[in-house]
């Protein structure tokens, strides 16, 4: 609507006298800095990843460099168990993290959306880990999981776990331990987004439902949840992509260990390119990861009918 007006208005003749920024060129001038930055530092690297994925390219073994066709991809799919392991772990990680973050985030948002004494303080405290970095989260949870001085020692006092074990170096505990650490800072993201959206639910709807005798649970299912749907779809999608791509936390907390137990695909790719210098193969893996992400996102948006019928 606003845009239709925008197109109709500018050509009014009197305004033509300003030679400097004629409306025709102005939008292009305005997006130019952003477009140039993104072309240079996103598009170009992406294209070179696609290019390298078809090459044998390893700076430490220059005699083998050259065109490799689809060899890298064939190797990944047929000959590299680590690729499958890390892909499966990534899927598991994203699924569990996003699911739990959404569940707790939604619950928290509903709670702090109520009116109660101390609400402002409650909100501030609940949201506080939101801005904590992955590295700092790791630092904090390394302190908490430390076998000598961590909280685990006190939990052992009351019979949870045993003394002297570090949850991060035991293959049976490392997954839940890492999940909890990431939940700690991930839940507030959902809580903030959902709370923001909750504030735009018309209160008349609830009052009408109340008059009709709908229980609070029914109100939640039939008013709140449908209203939140688009926000939830979008935030889960963004978060899933983010959780898939983000390597800060696991890189610093477990480094993919112990014994590769928490190695995600991006971590594996980072190791392949940074430590093993196998850029060609890492590029092929990156391409695969990119295609998988794009495909899953499209399926997700289609299945969830994002945007509803009004678009």
């Amino acid at each position, binding site marked *: 609507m*606003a845009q239709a007006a925008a*197109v109709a208005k500018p050509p009014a003749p009197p305004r033509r006298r300003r030679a400097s*920024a004629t409306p025709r060129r102005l939008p292009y001038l305005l997006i130019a800095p952003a477009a140039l*930055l993104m072309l240079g530092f996103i598009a170009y690297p992406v294209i070179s990843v696609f290019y390298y994925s078809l090459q044998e390219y390893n700076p430490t073994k220059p005699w083998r460099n050259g065109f490799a066709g689809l060899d890298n991809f064939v190797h990944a799919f047929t000959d590299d168990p680590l690729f499958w392991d890390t892909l499966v772990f990534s899927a598991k990680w994203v699924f569990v993290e996003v699911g739990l973050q959404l569940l707790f985030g939604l619950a928290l948002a509903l709670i702090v959306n109520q009116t109660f004494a101390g609400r402002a303080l409650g909100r501030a405290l609940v949201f506080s880990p939101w801005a904590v970095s992955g590295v700092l989260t790791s630092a*904090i949870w390394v*302190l908490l999981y430390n076998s000598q001085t961590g909280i685990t020692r006190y939990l052992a006092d009351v019979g949870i776990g045993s003394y002297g074990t570090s949850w991060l170096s035991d293959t049976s505990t490392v997954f839940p331990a890492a999940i909890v650490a990431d939940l700690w800072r991930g839940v507030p993201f959902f809580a903030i*987004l959902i709370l923001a959206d909750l504030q735009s639910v018309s*209160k008349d709807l609830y009052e009408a439902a*109340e008059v009709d005798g709908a229980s609070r649970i029914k109100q939640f299912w039939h008013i709140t949840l449908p209203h939140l749907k688009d926000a939830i779809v979008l935030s889960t999608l963004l978060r899933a992509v983010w959780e898939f791509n983000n390597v800060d936390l696991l890189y610093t907390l477990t480094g993919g260990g112990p014994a590769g137990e928490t190695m995600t695909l991006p971590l594996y790719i980072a190791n392949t390119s940074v430590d093993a210098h196998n850029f060609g193969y890492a590029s092929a893996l990156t391409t695969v990861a990119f295609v998988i992400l794009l495909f899953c996102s499209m399926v997700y948006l289609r299945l969830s009918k994002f945007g509803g019928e009004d678009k």
Partner: protein
Amino acid sequence: MSVKEATKTAPAPLRAAPEPPRPTKKNRSWDEAPRWQIYLPLSIYLVFTLIPFYWILLFSLRPAGSTSLVPWPITFDHFEKVWTERSFGTYFQNSVLVGIATLLMTTLVALAGGYALARFNFKIKRAFMLALLCSQFVPGALLLVPLFETFAELQMINSLGSVIIAETVFQLPLSMILISNFIKNVPYSLEEAAWVDGCNRMTAFRIVVLPLLRPGLIAVGSFAFVHSWNHFLFALMFLNNPEKQTIPVGLNTLMGADSVDLGALAAGGIIAAVPVVIVFAFIQKWLITGFSAGAVKG
């Protein structure tokens, strides 16, 4: 004043006058849950949220080797050590520099682009929007190698400029979409009215639109700052010189040491957290309004 009124996203909630108490047991108004249903889960969650914060504070303030659960006797040795011996003073400066430069660049570039997206129809607009959305799926971490090569060609390895550019570029798409939604919420007629009064586009924008964008710009700018403050991989990859490192890389080094000095690690963590906490306290009230105005709907 009236302008502000007009652009509020939601009308002030119509609060029904307190209804007369009903004869049934449901004698609370519709939006009130029983108190324990609020305070019990909230307290449990708060314990989970706050213990980690307490733990790191405890470790940073109690003497090395102490196992006391209260930081007493209190000591600031760890902070001194980390700030000077472990060069957190230098890291802090670098991080502040990167954070502020990223904030300024992201906000300015996104503001220009966001205005174009909100106010004009132009040929490549759809393609550009699509590119913005697609860039969300591009994993920055996976572009490390080509980015490294690009910056090497530009002779920018080991200069903070490389990190600033990389952080800005990956902040841009979302920031621009957010800002364009904020601008769409400002009625175009306001700008037109200013033109009629003789302002040119730039002046009209500065006088009429910019003040209304404040909450949105604060949200976007602080995101950019906090994000670049926290982000770790770009600095790790592009800055090899210890003089040029940033705080997250310093923290990672502390964690990677052979025998981790827990006190130093905790103190380093507190130093990393302080600016973020300050920014957070400052923007919290803008955050929710900023989001509800621009983030999800649009």
